[in-house]
């Protein structure tokens, strides 16, 4: 009953939105960020509507219709691919002109070797879509890129201009406090930092560039990733929707988004930062989700039984208890970000990866290995700093478990 009234309200609001969209289409509005927002505003209730309909229709009916829909899409795709192919036979009946035999059974040739015309024109569609996307919304990405570039340049400038002993002392101080005053870790991290510059003076500034990119990339990952992780932990539906996206982000080869990155943001640090986000964010999202779901059910019940609201539960119980896992996620995120920065040197990103690339191009094994070593040292420094903080939190929340 409640569901139905809710549903009606949503239908009405959708109709209003459709009206709005139609109206804005007719007006001549420059295709800018507002236009994109309008589209998003339309998109979100539409998704809600679809989910609502899916909830109301009985499951088996839904399953049946989704199968029928799938079949229709497949058949349409095959027809389109046949019609749009340049290599299709002149006549449909030509398909059955050439025969071959498989284990003595005669078969038309197109069933034996993959026919050239059975090829969906996905590439053309993506290219077409991409072109119009750039034309319409390129400005938005320019704006994002500019903002990020400003932040990157400022931060890098400050650290590069700081005398190097002060930077090393800063790193030591941060490690000392995040690790809970552990002298061993602190001294080790200090030495690693020193050795980055000690290996080759050129590496110092490059390491700072790399670190700045990593830091900004991680900051974006945290700002976007943690709320998504929380949303996933709260709702099964959100999780089911996000998981395939995360799989795609993790599996898709880095070069597939490095190149569109160049087109959208130009060469340099920004596409690298965006790539860091795509590559390094999934583990953080997954570990946030996992961490929150792993919080003891009885502790959650206890909080609920005292009348904790959703916000009190999240901030007071779930997030603090998930923090060791989230910190692990940030640690993973850092390591993957560093790996991505090195790969991103291939699209002209400066930094330590650049040195490795240079060494490879000149077949200078020594230079490449030296730069590689510097990257390892940087990785150790960043890892110890984030790891130490996670350990400290873990000790505070579960003091018994750490001391064996």
């Amino acid at each position: 009953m409640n569901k139905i009234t809710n549903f009606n309200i949503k239908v009405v609001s959708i109709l209003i939105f459709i009206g709005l969209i139609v109206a804005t289409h007719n007006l001549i509005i420059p295709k800018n960020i507002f236009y994109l927002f309008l589209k998003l505003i339309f998109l979100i209730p539409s998704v809600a509507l679809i989910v609502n309909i899916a909830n109301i229709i009985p499951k088996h009916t839904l399953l049946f219709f989704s199968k029928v829909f799938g079949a229709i899409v497949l058949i349409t795709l095959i027809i389109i691919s046949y019609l749009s192919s340049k290599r299709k036979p002149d006549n449909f009946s030509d398909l059955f002109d050439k025969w071959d035999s498989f284990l003595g059974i005669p078969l038309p040739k197109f069933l034996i070797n993959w026919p050239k015309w059975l090829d969906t024109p996905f590439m053309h569609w993506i290219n077409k879509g991409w072109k119009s996307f750039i034309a319409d919304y390129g400005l938005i990405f320019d704006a994002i890129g500019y903002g990020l570039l400003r932040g990157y340049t400022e931060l890098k400038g400050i650290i590069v201009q700081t005398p190097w002993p002060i930077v090393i002392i800063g790193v030591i101080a941060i490690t000392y406090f995040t690790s809970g005053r552990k002298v061993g870790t602190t001294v080790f991290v200090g030495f690693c930092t020193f050795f980055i510059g000690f290996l080759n003076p050129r590496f110092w500034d490059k390491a700072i560039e790399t670190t700045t990119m990593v830091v900004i990339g991680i900051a974006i990952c945290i700002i976007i990733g943690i709320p998504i992780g929380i949303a996933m932990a709260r709702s099964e539906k959100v999780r089911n929707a996000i998981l395939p996206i995360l799989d795609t982000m993790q599996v898709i080869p880095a070069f597939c988004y490095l190149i569109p990155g160049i087109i959208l943001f130009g060469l340099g640090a920004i596409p690298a930062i965006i790539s860091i986000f795509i590559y390094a964010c999934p583990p953080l999202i997954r570990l946030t989700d996992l961490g929150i779901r792993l919080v003891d059910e009885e502790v959650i019940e206890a909080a609920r039984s005292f009348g904790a609201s959703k916000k009190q539960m999240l901030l007071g119980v779930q997030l603090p208890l998930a923090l060791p896992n989230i910190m692990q996620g940030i640690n993973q995120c850092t390591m993957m970000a560093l790996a991505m920065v090195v790969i991103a040197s291939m699209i002209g990103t400066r930094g330590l990866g650049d040195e490795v690339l240079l060494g490879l191009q000149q077949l200078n094994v020594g230079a490449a290995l030296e730069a590689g070593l510097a990257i390892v040292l940087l990785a150790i420094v960043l890892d110890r700093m984030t790891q130490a903080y996670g350990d400290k939190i873990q000790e505070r929340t579960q003091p018994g478990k750490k001391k064996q």
Partner: protein
Amino acid sequence: MSKIEIKNVYKIFGNNPSEVLPMVKEGANKEEVLEKTGHTVGLDNVSLSIEEGETFVCMGLSGSGKSTLIRHLNRLIDPTDGDIIVDGTNIMELDEHQLIDFRKHELSMVFQRFGLFPHKTVIENIGYGLEIQGKTLEERNKTAMTQIEAVGLQGFEDQYPSQLSGGMQQRVGLARALATNPEILLMDEAFSALDPLIRSDMQQQLIELQSKLKKTIVFITHDLDESLRLGDHIGILNGGRLVQAGTPEQIIMNPADDYVKAFVKDVNRAKVLKAKTVMVQADKFDTSSIKLAETYKVNEGVYIEEFLPKVLENNSTIVVVDGKGDTKGYITSKELAISLSKTGYNETTNTTQ
């Protein structure tokens, strides 16, 4: 009006509980429903009333629905059908905001595995309910300290739960529940995870606290001895159905079915039955047979174990008196033999009378 009333509550777990409900209402049992629909029946037409200030013990084996039942009282679980009335309010009609308010002030809960917040110290844990209510840190700590003293945990207030033993953790759980000064205390197998000595200690502590505080306590357990010790009334659940509810004596003397009989079989009756329950009424007893020198007076509320040795030693007759000193009835070795025999009090009395 009872403090808590549970009226015809059904709970079915599964994808589509409302479709299965009519089948359960028609009397299909748990196994049938599971086999035919894949739904699990948690509670099947449970009706109960719990009076103010009493300790109601809900007992059953695992899977009998007792933990499900207690979670209905603060709506951690919502019933599929039925009404739950607390203090005259039907809590099924509360909206989300009212429900949160109800949980904040009316009741609190103690959990089997304690449910303490591992990232908070003892004092922060105990003050949690007050924190949710929006009390200041000072107020919280003041109330928490009195509770810490009440459960005897002075000196541990800045420790984390994982640094405490199980018994101490559960005391923190109890103190946390009492800190908000709720009228109703829900205890979900609160002492089941503790070892026997500490458990009996905690039971004693609860009895003492209860004699001072007079809360309405709903206590879940699978241990009959515990329920007899703590309960003013006991309800026994089996497969989601309430098979019997009554005072401990009623349960022991008149088990409703084989399930309850199996439960009470191994009970030490001398510890549970009171003089009042086993005596023969004064007007039905032939007083000519007693010799005055061999009588011994006991109060009607005394357990058998306290006067049993006297009867065995001197073969004396027990005179049961009430608070004013009036004779209410008599107990001889015959009554004791009948009441302590395992084969069932009723059958034996029927054949002897």
